[in-house]
């Protein structure tokens, strides 16, 4: 029969977190499942509202974002963890000498303006015995890490190791990196994740299954053949820096699945821990029912 139209919304610009999906498109895995997938690049409002409202069927999000969404009764469900462990953290140019949360004191942090960042930094500094009131938190919005730090506007920022970290290496810029996932288990949450709506799962389960079958194939391919996957991605997204893609792809190949039994699996305790932390810090007024926030049904 005719292929079913499916819209997949990214979280931001295409990057190596999305390689599996691009591979599945290019290699025809979706077509085999009878799906015609369109990939959309959104603004920094992200994919959540679009997926929840049914404007798109699937999208990329983060555990944090799904938690906020569910706290506001937005019917979003995470159906796969793209990367097993949080691969983001705090980066700073070498000369800034920021190697642990202790060193945040007296420095300028450049973020995207979310209160969660502030709370995270505060939490880490307190834990390390530093004075959180001594860090200056600035919002740089869409300005990027390198621009902001080398122009002296900020000292450190929240970066993705597999992207900004790799880019730094390529540019020959030396940086220090504090892996957030390793600082405290609570911060080893899932980012990014693939999401869909409750409505899709209830009324269109077949499509979700088909979509995920193909997506899994895509990511497994990326895990096994990082070089080929990188080339496929570069072909699909020629606007990005090819060198950066290749290096980033190499970096991520082992981290998609990492120590998990299979790609995409999500653990309840990870969801519960972070949910509790958000609740304790007052970001959500009610703890959410984490069982409903994610499902492994489609990756098992």
């Amino acid at each position, binding site marked *: 029969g005719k292929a079913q139209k499916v819209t997949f919304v990214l979280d931001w610009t295409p990057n190596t977190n999305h390689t599996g999906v691009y591979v599945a498109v290019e290699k025809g895995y979706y077509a085999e499942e009878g799906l015609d997938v369109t990939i959309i690049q959104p603004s*920094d409002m992200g994919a959540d509202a679009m997926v929840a409202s049914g404007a798109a069927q699937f999208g990329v999000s983060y555990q944090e974002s799904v938690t906020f*969404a569910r706290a*506001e009764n937005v019917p979003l469900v995470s159906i796969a963890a793209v990367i097993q462990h949080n691969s983001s953290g705090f980066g700073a140019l070498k000369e800034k000498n920021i190697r642990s949360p202790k060193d945040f004191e007296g420095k300028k942090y450049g973020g*995207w303006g979310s209160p969660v960042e502030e709370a995270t930094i505060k939490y880490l500094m307190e834990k390390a015995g530093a004075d959180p009131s001594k860090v200056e938190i600035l*919002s*740089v*919005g*869409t300005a990027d890490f390198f621009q902001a730090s080398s122009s002296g506007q900020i000292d450190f920022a929240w970066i993705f190791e597999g992207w900004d970290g790799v880019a730094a290496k390529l540019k020959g810029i030396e940086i220090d990196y504090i892996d957030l996932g390793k600082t405290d288990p609570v911060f080893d949450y899932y980012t990014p994740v693939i999401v869909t709506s409750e409505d899709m799962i209830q009324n269109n389960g077949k499509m979700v299954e088909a979509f995920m079958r193909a997506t899994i194939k895509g990511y497994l391919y990326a895990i096994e053949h990082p070089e080929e996957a990188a080339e496929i991605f570069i072909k699909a997204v020629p606007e990005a820096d090819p060198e950066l893609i290749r290096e980033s792809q190499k970096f991520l190949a082992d981290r998609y699945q990492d120590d998990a039994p299979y790609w995409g699996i999500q653990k309840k305790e990870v969801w519960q821990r972070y949910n509790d932390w958000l609740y304790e810090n007052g970001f959500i007024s009610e703890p959410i029912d984490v069982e409903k926030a994610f499902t492994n049904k489609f990756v098992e």
Partner: protein
Amino acid sequence: MDWLPVGFSLAILVTWYVVVTWHDVPEFILPSPVKVIEELIGSWDLLLEHTLVTISEAFLGLFISIVLGTAIGFAMGYFETFRRMVYPLFVMTQTVPLFVLAPLFILWFGFGILPKIVVVFMVCFFPIAVTFAQGLVQSDSGMDDLLSVMGATRWKIFRISRIPQALPHLFSGLKIAATYGIVGAVLAEWVGAQKGLGVFMTRAMKSFRTGVLFADVLIIVLLSMLLYKAVEWVERIVCRNITNGGKIT
């Protein structure tokens, strides 16, 4: 006070309310106006705090735009060569997508109030300068001739005839600037700031509080309309004499 648009707006609000409740539209797609008002009242103190920041940025930016816009608009009207030189460049600045440039402004000007003022200026300067220049350029040559026979210098011709005649134009530019001033500041904040309605907005958006987002937008709209009305009021006072009788030339 003209009640017609007020009534019309109310009608739209009611329709909005009815549609939203009737079709049971989820809040994150489109909150009902009642919800928006609730959020407005609920987050009042927080909103106020952010609003004050935005207002101060917008006002400073507008002030500078008005001063420089009028001055450069005048220079463009007065010096033909200057106009020919810079006018296409000014048009160009308007075709540059600001939401792309705004992050660079942060790099260039830091995180303080400066990049916000620059964005407001980029948005508001152009309409003021251009409308004023256009008003100054179109002239009644007979009147100019007469004044020059009276011994008026170019400057006096402008002061006596061209500037008054250009004032209604200038005010239409000022009204455009008033319309966009607040939005400009919000855009700048949205791209990177610590406080202000733009920051508040991104936060509301990220936490799916569309009701609060709309309350935020509502404040922006009300502020802008207030500014607009203020300019209109000044215009009425300043141009009363000029446009009296309905015809300026």
